């Protein structure tokens, strides 16, 4: 590519001035004047400093730490090879049951939250995609909870769902329903609470992404389908879904990643209750590595979690590609 451009630019320089042709324009685009070789690097430098210090080095360091018996508070951090990983897969080790319980919590949350977080925003987007009065108002309202951070929505829902003194149980009671549901203290209610609060908080995010995708589907396709007598259901299946395929894959992947990295909701709403059953993997990793400072084990846990996430993403892409082909 580079050599082609250089050639055409030479031609352009040699050409007498006249009507601006395609060749000349393309040449001028690439090499109008020769800037010094270091100019691009000057522009890149500030970002690269940050990128190196807080992304590249940490990525390497993560692997390095996971191969050591790395207690942050102790001076010696001896090499331990794959010991930290072995511990995670040895049922006799001290971390085995806690780690896999936290992975299970992350798994439960991901498996049960992702379908809602993918499907409900799609329904909402289809409703909001019509042309009607107040459309942008409703879109803005449904998105609003997302601009509040997890810190805010976490303490808010912990209060709303407080089993003893919270308003939700109170209102349920005044409707004559059960007023002692252990929303934040017992299974399966903790999952209902965590998933419900997360859907309420983030539904607008995926909705907005779907809406952008829906707007990219050419109207003519719908009109053609209508002329062919397709029912609304058929139009959805044969026009909307294929048109949204790329967006759908993207939404599923970012939603899986977000759910699998859930932390704040468990930290604030259930605090891991009951008996750490809703303590997620990220929560356990943070406790282990950044409170107890057993960073070697925590680093290995991060990498195992990451491996699961990469696998989940790859499987999603392939599964959806296959589904699209069928």
């Amino acid at each position, binding site marked *: 590519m580079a050599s082609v451009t250089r050639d055409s630019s030479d031609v352009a320089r040699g050409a007498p001035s006249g009507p601006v042709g395609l060749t000349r324009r393309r040449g001028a685009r690439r090499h109008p004047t020769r800037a010094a070789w270091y100019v691009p690097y000057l522009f890149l430098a500030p970002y690269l400093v940050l990128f190196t210090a807080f992304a590249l080095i940490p990525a390497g360091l993560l692997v390095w730490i996971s191969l050591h018996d790395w207690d942050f508070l102790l001076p010696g951090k001896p090499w331990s090879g794959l010991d930290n990983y072995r511990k995670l897969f040895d049922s006799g080790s001290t971390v085995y049951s806690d780690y896999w319980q936290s992975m299970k919590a992350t798994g439960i949350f991901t498996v049960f939250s992702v379908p809602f977080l993918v499907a409900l925003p799609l329904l909402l987007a289809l409703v909001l995609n019509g042309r009607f009065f107040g459309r942008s108002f*409703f879109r803005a309202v449904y998105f609003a*909870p997302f601009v509040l951070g997890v810190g805010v929505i976490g303490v808010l829902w912990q*209060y709303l769902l407080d089993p003893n003194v919270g308003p939700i149980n*109170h209102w349920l009671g005044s409707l004559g329903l059960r007023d002692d549901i252990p929303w934040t203290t017992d299974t399966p209610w903790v999952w209902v609470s965590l998933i419900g609060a997360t859907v309420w908080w983030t539904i607008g995010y995926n909705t907005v*992404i779907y809406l952008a995708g829906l707007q990219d589907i050419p109207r003519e396709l719908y009109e053609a389908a209508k002329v062919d007598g397709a029912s609304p259901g058929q139009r959805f299946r044969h026009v909307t879904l294929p048109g949204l395929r790329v967006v759908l894959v*993207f939404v599923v992947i970012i939603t899986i990643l977000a759910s699998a990295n859930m932390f704040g909701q468990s930290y604030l709403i259930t605090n891991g209750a009951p008996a750490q059953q809703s303590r997620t993997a990220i929560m356990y990793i943070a406790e282990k590595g950044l409170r107890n400072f057993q960073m070697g084990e925590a680093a290995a846990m991060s990498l195992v979690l990451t491996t699961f996430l990469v696998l989940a993403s790859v499987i999603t892409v392939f599964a959806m590609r296959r589904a699209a082909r069928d």
Partner: protein
Amino acid sequence: MAAIADRSPGEGQNDTLRRALSYALLFLLTIVFVAPIVWMVVTSLKSNYEATHSFSWIPTFDTEGYDALLNTDSSTPVLRWFLNSFIVAAGQTVLILVTASMAAYALARMEFPLKNVLFGLIVATLFVPPLVLIIPNYVVMDQLGWIDTLWAVMVPGAASAFGVFFLRQFFTLLPVELEEAALIDGASRAQIFTRIILPLSKPALATLAMLSFLVSWNDFLWPVYVLLNPPNFTLPAGLAILQNANNVNYAIIMAGAVVASVPVLLLYLFAQRYVIEGVSRAGLKG
């Protein structure tokens, strides 16, 4: 819409009914999304006792919650947290705008060795959740002497792959003719960048600024672990210790939540277009 003309009268009636049902649903959902936020504000304007005993939607304007927060010698200096959050979010936003726009310009308009490799690397980190790197980043913070300082929450998050990706996309779509003309007139790259590219990119920069500020203001896990003493906390980290206090005082907690919400809700109210546009364009990167 044009199709309405050739519908039978029966269908028209059906349409009205459907429209009414749609609006009913939309209003119901509005209540679902707004009511908890309203309840948060109402509770913040009650006493702690009322927060768990009176379930009325009408606030009593008891300022017990806010008094406790504004009390400057308390162990929960909310005004200080507010200031910290603001410094961190504003600082991180500026860092992102400056570094990402410069890098994005180089990636959009200049040729240099390994450009595609570098860009690929940056894009790849878009798919690495930042929480994966908390352990090594803590070690980096320690090496820099940044543990328990605002630098630790402001600077690392500024390595925004999204910012670079987002602005590069925007820059490549700008017409190249203006830059060519300026180059022929002898302008330097720096002049072109500051006088042509940046002014033309105001909408994209505004969008990125909004999103960066929101994300930074709301950041939760990292400040909870990397900040140790209450005076150094940001608001979200502060909310967590309000909640962990021995006596659970929901009016105080809700007052804290309101303080943490007001700036972002205001920002959203006035710059809603940029926020939503940013998110929908973030979605299109897939």
